[in-house]
């Protein structure tokens, strides 16, 4: 479904943010990327839909390399890749239903998109999705008035509106309270199990990964250090994912 090979990225041309990252994602599975802050999790996720231009490697999505596509082709590919964010990134003054309908902009003509001319089929779909994430009665609420958990669910509905094959989740629960965290993670889990969508999540919380993931990819210092089923994620494996490299470990010891 999605295969990443030898992905590399450097932001300043010197320090490598990613060095040779390879992994693949299966349909209908929740794949979680864990690792310390600054390990390169976000860079990996954003390279997949090319919000960040990487330097080298291959990203095979449905057997085409996303990195080689021209602008129009990339837009077509992005239509099938949903994405949700830590800060939700909804258009706050607009209502929930408008934000959900943004999910089908990619399939519309420029003018239809600009003037919000949606087909009846699309409107029905949007309402259905709001119902699916439990926000049917908030359809005409401005998103700025919603709570964090509700915003994230609107974000999920927007991503689903794209009829995605994969959903990329960049720290989806980092700003949420424990109750909303469970709601959001339950929805994501359900999308993989029952709708066969691949869900790829950047996470900080190992315990959440344990309860929801099928597969875990551990990233440390821009490299894949763990790539296996969740059952294989032992405490030693976690320690190795979160370990500092030799130099900084020394300095941490001095600090304490």
């Amino acid at each position, binding site marked *: 479904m999605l295969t990443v090979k030898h992905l590399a990225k450097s932001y300043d041309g010197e320090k490598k943010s990613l060095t040779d990252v390879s992994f693949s994602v299966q349909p209908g599975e929740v794949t979680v990327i864990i690792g310390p802050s600054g390990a390169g999790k976000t860079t990996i996720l954003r390279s997949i839909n090319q919000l960040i231009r990487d330097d080298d490697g291959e990203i095979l999505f449905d057997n085409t390399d996303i990195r080689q596509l021209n602008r129009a082709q990339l837009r077509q590919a992005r239509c099938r890749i949903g994405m949700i964010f830590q800060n939700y990134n909804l258009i706050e003054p607009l209502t929930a239903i408008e934000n959900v309908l943004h*999910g089908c902009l990619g399939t519309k003509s420029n003018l239809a998109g600009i003037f919000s001319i949606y087909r009846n089929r699309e409107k029905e779909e949007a309402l259905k999705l709001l119902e699916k994430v439990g926000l049917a009665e908030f359809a005409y609420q401005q998103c700025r008035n919603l709570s964090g958990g509700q915003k994230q669910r609107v974000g999920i509905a927007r991503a689903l509106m794209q009829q995605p094959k994969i959903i990329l989740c960049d720290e989806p629960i980092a700003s949420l309270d424990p109750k909303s965290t469970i709601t959001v993670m339950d929805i994501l889990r359900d999308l993989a199990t029952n709708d066969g969508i691949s869900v790829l999540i950047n996470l900080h919380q190992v315990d959440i990964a344990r309860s929801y993931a099928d597969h875990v990819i551990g990233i440390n210092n821009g490299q894949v250090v763990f790539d296996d089923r969740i059952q294989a994620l032992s405490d030693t494996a976690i320690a190795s994912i979160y370990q500092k490299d030799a130099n900084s470990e020394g300095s941490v010891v001095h600090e304490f």
Partner: protein
Amino acid sequence: MNSDVQQVTNFFNTKRLRLSIILVIFGLAYIGASIGLGFQTQSLLNVQAGIAWLIHNFIPNEASQGYWNEIIQQLFRTFIVAVASTTCAAVVSLFLAIIGAQTLTPAITVSWVIRCLSSLLRNIPIVAWAMILLFSFKQNDLTGFLALFFMTLGFLTRAFMETIEDFGTEKIQALQATGATYLQVIFQGLLPEIAVALMTWILYMIENNVRDATLVGLLTGTGIGFIFNLYFKSLRYGAAGLVVLSVIILVVAVELISNLIGRLLS
């Protein structure tokens, strides 16, 4: 303990000393400038005589009431020129700001050129604009309109550009991630988010331009500025005073209305 107290005392002493030095520098600057300009400080004592003369002559009297009709006509005309120039400039500014903002620009050179252009337009004083344009467009409303238009264009382009840049790239990226086109991102994402901020800037600029239009009219021989000049030069001070009063009322009214709209928007 004692040395700690000493340290606090020293801290305040240093602070006081710094303030004193700054005040002395200001004082010296004033004295230096007075000598340079031949300004006599004691002449300030006669200010009240001048003000008394102003009040006596410029307070509108019975005779000046007859001018209301003409004044209101010209005031309205000036107001329309100010609003028209601001709104026209706002439309062009928004376009320039979008392609000029670093987060949305198609090429960094475009951004750079627009920045320079807006800086140039903005930094030519309105009076200079009016006088330059007078050569080509003569004494009519169009000259005033254009002078206000160019200055507003420079100012609003800059203000809009900063508003757009403050908006950031995250939400733009979120819409790009759905496969939306550049124009779709702008109309569905950027504009709804910054609409209120844009309106606030436009209202501020209308207020500003109502004031400036008076001055520009004085130079281009149109509108309220022109009749102020006319009454003033023909020694009809009462009527001139009435013009000043009417401009103040208009500006305050515009300000109140713009505050009201601002509150309704947010």
